[in-house]
C-alpha cells in the first residue's frame, strides 16, 4: 500500500466518523428542517372542524416546524422621551396629576400615563394633504406617516395593520410593532382621522430588554392554534372568515418595570376582531388573570 492509498482510506474513515458525529449532534435540527408541523391531513381536519363551527379559513401560513422564545420588554422610554422633547421644544406647559403628565401647547396636547401609554390630541387637527377625495388607502397612509414623522410621533419599527371607519364617521388606522423582525402585537398605535384631519394618536410602544434564547422552544402549529381557538370560542352563530394566522408576540399591558411576553398565534377574523393563542401553551390569552396587589 502506498501513501496515496493510505490517505484515501483515512479520508473515507474520517468522512464516516464525521457523518456519525454530525448525526448525533444535529439530528433533531436536521429533523426540524425536513419536518413539517402541519400535514395535508392535519390541514383538512382543521378546516373541517372550523367549517363545522361556522368558521372558514382564508389565510395561508407556514407549515414548517417553528420555534420561538420569550421576549422581555418594557414600555418604551425612548419613544416617550422623543415625543416629549418635541413638545418641550414647542414650549409646552407641563402639569402633573397622580401618575399622569400633561403637555399642552398650541394646537397639540399630550397625556402620558404611568403604564407607558401616550395619547396625543390635535386641535383642530392635522390636515392630510389630499387633492381629491378619491385618494387610495395607500396614499392616505403615506401622508399620515410622513406628517406624524415630521411631528416626531411616528415610532420606529411599525407595521400597518388595518383601517376601519366607526359609527361617528371617524376613521381609525391601526399599526403594530415589529421587534426583532417579529410582530409584537402588544405594541400598538392608533391614528384617528376626522374629516381628513388627524385628531388624535394613541401609542403604546415597547422596548426590548432581552431575548431569552435559552428558553427557545418549539411552538404549537397554526392548525393546533386554530383547533384551540374553536374549542375556546365555540361555534359562531354566523359565518366568520379567518383572514390571517400569524406568529408574533403578545401579552396584556402591565403597570410594571418589565415583563416577558410569549409567542402567540394571532387569528384575525373578517371583521378585524382578533384573538391570541399562546404558541407554547395553546391557551387563549386573556387579561385580568393577575392577582390583585397583595396590599
Amino acid at each position, binding site marked *: 500500500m502506498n501513501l496515496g492509498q493510505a490517505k484515501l482510506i483515512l479520508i473515507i474513515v*474520517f468522512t464516516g466518523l464525521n457523518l456519525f458525529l454530525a448525526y448525533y449532534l444535529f439530528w433533531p435540527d436536521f429533523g426540524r428542517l425536513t419536518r413539517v408541523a402541519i400535514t395535508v391531513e392535519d390541514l383538512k381536519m382543521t378546516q373541517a372542524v372550523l367549517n363545522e363551527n361556522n368558521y372558514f379559513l382564508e389565510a395561508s401560513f407556514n407549515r414548517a416546524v417553528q420555534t420561538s422564545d420569550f421576549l422581555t420588554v418594557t414600555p418604551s422610554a425612548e419613544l416617550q422621551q422623543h415625543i416629549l422633547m418635541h413638545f418641550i421644544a414647542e414650549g409646552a406647559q407641563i402639569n402633573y396629576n397622580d401618575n399622569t403628565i400633561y403637555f399642552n401647547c398650541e394646537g397639540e396636547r399630550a397625556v402620558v400615563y404611568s403604564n407607558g401609554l401616550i395619547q396625543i390630541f390635535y386641535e383642530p387637527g392635522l390636515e392630510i394633504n389630499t387633492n381629491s377625495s378619491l385618494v387610495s388607502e395607500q396614499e392616505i397612509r403615506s401622508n399620515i406617516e410622513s406628517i406624524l414623522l415630521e411631528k416626531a410621533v411616528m415610532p420606529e419599527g411599525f407595521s400597518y395593520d388595518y383601517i376601519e371607519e366607526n359609527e361617528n364617521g371617524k376613521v381609525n388606522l391601526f399599526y403594530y410593532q415589529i421587534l426583532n423582525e417579529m410582530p409584537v402585537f402588544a405594541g400598538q398605535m392608533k391614528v384617528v382621522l376626522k374629516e381628513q384631519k388627524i385628531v388624535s394618536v394613541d401609542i403604546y410602544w415597547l422596548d426590548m430588554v432581552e431575548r431569552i434564547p435559552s428558553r427557545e422552544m418549539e411552538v404549537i402549529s397554526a392548525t393546533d392554534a386554530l383547533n384551540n381557538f374553536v374549542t375556546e370560542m365555540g361555534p359562531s352563530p354566523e359565518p366568520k372568515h379567518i383572514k390571517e394566522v400569524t406568529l408574533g408576540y403578545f*401579552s396584556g399591558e402591565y403597570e410594571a418595570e418589565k415583563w*416577558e411576553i410569549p409567542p402567540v398565534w394571532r387569528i384575525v377574523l373578517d371583521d378585524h376582531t382578533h384573538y391570541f393563542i399562546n404558541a407554547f*401553551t395553546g391557551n387563549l390569552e386573556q387579561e385580568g388573570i393577575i392577582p390583585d396587589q397583595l396590599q
Partner: protein
Amino acid sequence: MKEMLKTLILILLIVLSLYLTYQLWYGQMPAELIAEDVLEEGIADKPRVMEEIIKPSRILSVDNEKYYRYGEGQSEYSLLWAELIDFLKTEKSPLSGEEYNNEEGSISEGLLIYTFEPPLPLLEDWIWIPERINSEVVQIKVKFSPESLDLIYTGREDEEVEVHLNKDTGSHFREVYHSLNSNERGSYSPVDDEVLSAMYDFEITVAKPFYLPTEWANPESLAIQAEAINREQILQSFFVDYNLARMIEEKDGGLIYTDGEKGLRLTKSGFEYSYPGLESGQATSSYADALLYSSNLIGYHGGWSPGLKLEKLSLNENPFSSYYSVDWRLYYDGRPIYSSIPTRALFNDLGLIHFTRSLYIPVGVLDDEEEGVIPAAVWSEALNAALTAFENRRTDFVKNIVLEEICPGYAVVGQQQPLQGEPVWFVQINGEKFYLTAAELKLLDEEDMQ
C-alpha cells in the same frame, strides 16, 4: 497536486472530527431537550396525619375551679393533645349503668376541656368517637375521677354524649395530667354573656365563651422575620412546566409569573396565586377530604412552618359555584400572630383557585425587652377601649353588639427587618377588628401592620 489535495482534505476531516467530538462531549444541549416538559419534583412536606392537620383551638385545664389555658406553640398543649389522641386511638368499652356507680357529688380530680374550632371530622380508623355522635366533634371533656374516667363529647349539632370508662383506663393520661405544673402559669377567667351583662348597661353578647388571662404581667415584644420563600420551589409547585410561565417585574420589586391562565405573585413577604378559570367549579368533597386536601396544599406550597395551625375551614356556596376556604395562622407560645394578609387557600373539585401565603416567623423575644416590660391592661379594659373605638367607627350602630373575638396575641409591625411582634389585645365586634397595644391600649391601624 492530487496528493496535496488529499492531504488537505484529510487534515480538514481530522480537524472537523475533533471539533465535532468536542461539541458532542462539552457542547450545549439542543434547545428541544432544554425545553422539554419537565415535571420537577417539588420539595414538599410529607403528608400529615389527621391529628397533625387539625388540632384543638384551645385546651383548658380546670383545677379547683381555676382555669388554665394551653395553646399551639406550648409544650403542655402538644403533650395533652398527643395523650388524648393516643388514648382514643384504641376502641373503648364504656361501663354499663350497673358497672358505673358514681355517687352523687363524688370528687373530680380534674377536668380537661378540648375545644375544636374547626371541628374534628368523623373519620373511620382514626380516633374512637361514640356512635351516638353523628356530626363533627366540637368539644371533648376528659374528667378524671377516683372511680372512673369520663369522656363527654359534644357534636356540631349540639348532641352531647357522656361515656364512663374504667378508672384504670388511661392511667398514663392521668399521670400526664397530674404532672402539669399549673403554678408556673397564670389562671384564666371565663367571659360569657353573664359576665358582660354584669359589666354593661346595654345589650352585649358573646359569639362563644372566652377564657382570658386574669393578668398578663409580661407582654414582651417579639423579634419577627418574614418567612424566607424559595422562589424557584414555589414556582415549580404551581407550574407543572415553569418554562412556560412568563415573568412580570413590578415597579415595587414584586414578581408575577403567569402562563396566561394562572398567575403567581411573589413579594418580599410571601406570594399570591390565582387561577380564575376554576372559579366556576363546585366543591363536593366531604369535610374530612377537604381537610386532607388543604393539608396537601399548605405542605406542597411552602410547607408547614413550626407553630402553624389550621384556623378555619368553611364551605362557601353561591348559586353558580361553591368552594372551600381554609385559613392557617402562626402561634407563638400559645398566642396568635396577627398580620394584615391571611395565609388562605380557596379550592373546589377542579383544584386550587386562590392561595395567599404571608407568614411572619417569631425568632424570640426582642433583646431590649427582656427587662422592664409594662404589664398589659386586663381584658375588661381592652374591651372598653375596643367598644369606644367601635362606637367611633360605627356611629350608626346602636344595638345587638356581639363580641366575636377577644384574644391576646402579637401584631406584626415595623418596616425593616427585624420586624416586631407587638403584644396586642385583638378584639372583634360585629365584624370590626381592633388591634390594641397590650399595655397602652393604643389602637393600631391595619396599615401599620405587615
